[in-house]
């Protein structure tokens, strides 16, 4: 590559980080050309768990593709459910009852918190601290229990349906959710004292791994990566969907663009999600959870449709092309981590290996979603 040719130092070596490496969280491989511990060139190698979901979509009915969406990003599966049902509802013109919308928002935001908690733990694990991971899992376990009681599964949810949700929530769920939020509010200061204020962590994250807003734009990075660069872009506000316009929440942004900024964005997002859930629980109306007019067999009109949601990792988009039959003609899944990872090569150039791993951790990668 050009980087090598232009460098004076010929003594570089290639380090294969992955596909089985503790820091890559799955089967991502990064081919690093290193000069000592400095990274000259980093090239992510993808596709180890590529499953061709898009081709599967072309061979199934619209409804049959639902379980696949939960298997893209195993940490915030409900957001991906949501993105897909939004796209199909838009294409087929299905209206969703208000109660179902509120239930969707509550469960998606719970899922977002659980996703951010896993990221938080795994990120500190990347940096060498083990204990916060298990504290975060302790909290996440409650979310999984809550969601399990509603959806029946713990990780790869398949809860939303075109025109509503699979089944109604029980009153226990609301009380359990509010109790959990109370608990997490009390635990957040602990997390900050244990981790955020820790001098070692500050030294490792502050001014490390710059991803400026312009780089985000060039690579199409969204979500906390973009918000950590100071751009307050959030699909929930930019293209309001579901009942988000009726809820009051802030979009945390930090202008620094370093690892610390992305870290703080996600921790603040946990707090904002808690606010959203509280409001949604208070406003939850009575009524059906499934549109009565929702057709059993979906046949959207010819044309192409797009729907985006704010998943935990950024903007998840679904582009549907319908030819008016019961199966999609083309189904494109735009996953946020894919774009977020694509900037890694440029952003990590010249960094030390541990800092590059901090940068990779702060991008919050989920490999099945990248490989699809």
């Amino acid at each position: 590559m050009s980087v090598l040719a232009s460098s004076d130092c010929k003594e570089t070596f290639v380090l294969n980080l992955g596909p089985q490496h503790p820091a890559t969280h799955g089967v991502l491989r990064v081919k690093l050309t290193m000069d000592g511990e400095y990274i000259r060139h980093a090239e992510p190698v993808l596709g180890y768990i590529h499953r061709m979901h898009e081709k599967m979509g072309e061979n199934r009915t619209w409804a049959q593709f639902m379980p696949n969406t939960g298997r893209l990003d195993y940490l915030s599966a409900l957001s991906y459910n949501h993105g897909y049902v939004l796209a199909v509802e838009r294409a087929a013109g299905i209206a969703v009852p208000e109660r179902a919308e509120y239930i969707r928002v509550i469960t998606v935001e719970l899922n977002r918190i659980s996703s951010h908690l896993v990221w938080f733990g795994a990120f500190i694990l990347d940096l060498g601290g083990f204990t916060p991971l298990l504290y975060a899992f302790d909290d996440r376990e409650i979310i999984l229990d809550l969601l399990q009681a509603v959806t029946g599964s713990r990780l790869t949810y398949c809860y939303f349906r075109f025109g509503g949700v699979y089944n109604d929530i029980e009153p226990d769920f609301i009380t359990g959710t509010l109790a959990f939020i109370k608990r997490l509010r009390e635990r957040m200061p602990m997390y900050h004292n244990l981790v955020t204020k820790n001098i070692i962590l500050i030294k490792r994250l502050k001014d490390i791994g710059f991803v400026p807003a312009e780089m985000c734009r060039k690579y199409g990075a969204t979500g906390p990566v973009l918000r950590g660069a100071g751009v307050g872009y959030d699909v929930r506000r930019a293209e309001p969907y579901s009942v988000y316009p009726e809820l009051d929440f802030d979009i945390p942004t930090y202008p620094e663009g370093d690892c610390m900024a992305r870290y703080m964005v996600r921790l603040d997002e946990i707090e904002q999600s808690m606010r959203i859930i509280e409001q949604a629980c208070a406003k939850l109306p009575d009524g059906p959870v499934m549109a009565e007019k929702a057709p059993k067999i979906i046949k959207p009109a010819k044309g192409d449709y797009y729907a985006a949601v704010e998943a935990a990792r950024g903007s998840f988009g679904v582009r549907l092309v319908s030819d008016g039959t019961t199966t999609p003609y083309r189904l494109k899944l735009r996953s946020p981590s894919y774009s977020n990872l694509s900037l890694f090569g440029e952003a990590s150039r010249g960094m030390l290996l541990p800092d590059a791993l901090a940068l990779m951790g702060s991008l919050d990668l989920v490999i099945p979603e990248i490989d699809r």
Partner: protein
Amino acid sequence: MNLHSEPIRLLAFLVGIIAFAALNAAYLVWLERKVAGHVQRRIGPKEVGPFGLLQPLVDGIKLMTKQVLIPDNIDPILFRLAPPLLLIPAVMSFVTIPFSETLVARDINLGLLMIFAFASINVLGILLGGWGSNNKYAVIAAARGVSQNVAYEIPMLITVITMVMITHTLNLNEIVRQQGGGIFNWYIFRWSANPLMLISFLIFFTCSLAETNRAPFDLGEAESELVAGYHTEYSGMGFGIFFMGEYANIVIGCSLATILFLGGWQCPFGLWPGVHWFLIKLYILIFTVILIRWTFPRTTIYGLLNLSWKVLIPFALFNLILTGAMIKIWPMIFP
């Protein structure tokens, strides 16, 4: 048979020291896992024996029965030499440690010097292990380990020189004897000798963490970056010996801190001095070391060097000068 004859005494100590080092390695792993478990609100080992107490034994058997895989293209001599090179100096250092006034293998006058001489060898074990494995991760880890050890030996030795200036001796047993008669005679609280003694202790403790490659300075085996660092390619007992050497080093580091600052086998209130006080203090320090590992994230190599050169060395040097001044000026004011 005369039980006090020198060869028998030495033999007894030899067996005792090796047993102490091996048992410590085994049960510190157990302690580490238990502490980690409870810190993380788990139980830790519990299946084998009561409270999982037999777990280290079973682990040991497992390690010994495992095949020692020797990868291709390694340096066959260095690869095999490295683990003993890490373990033997650590075990040798126990020779001069005074567990109590009488329970010391060799009460030599240069005990402190000898321990530091041996402590410098174990860097070689890390370097050769990393280099001999012919593995990129291991080489990076070895390079890190060496620069880290070299950087931290300086503040550590400066602090030790400060201590030697106060104690006037390198004999460890003598240093402990000087701290008799209650907690305020311990060097950590002997503020008449140097008001910054507490800082000296912290510098020494931090350095011994770094010297023993313990978290948060475990850059040499940073598992989320370098898989397993310099012992990536070692399996079975090769890995087991590295492990034992590491834990023996921790015990040595904490023993030295106990002896130099916390009064060794002396009792905090001047009564019943003996080996039990030494062990209590030692294990409190070791517990702190373990708790530190399960609390903090890892530093980076430049963070580590920054800490050494910008914080620890200036403070240690200041301490040295202050102590020298106190020794010379104090008697002039109060003759």
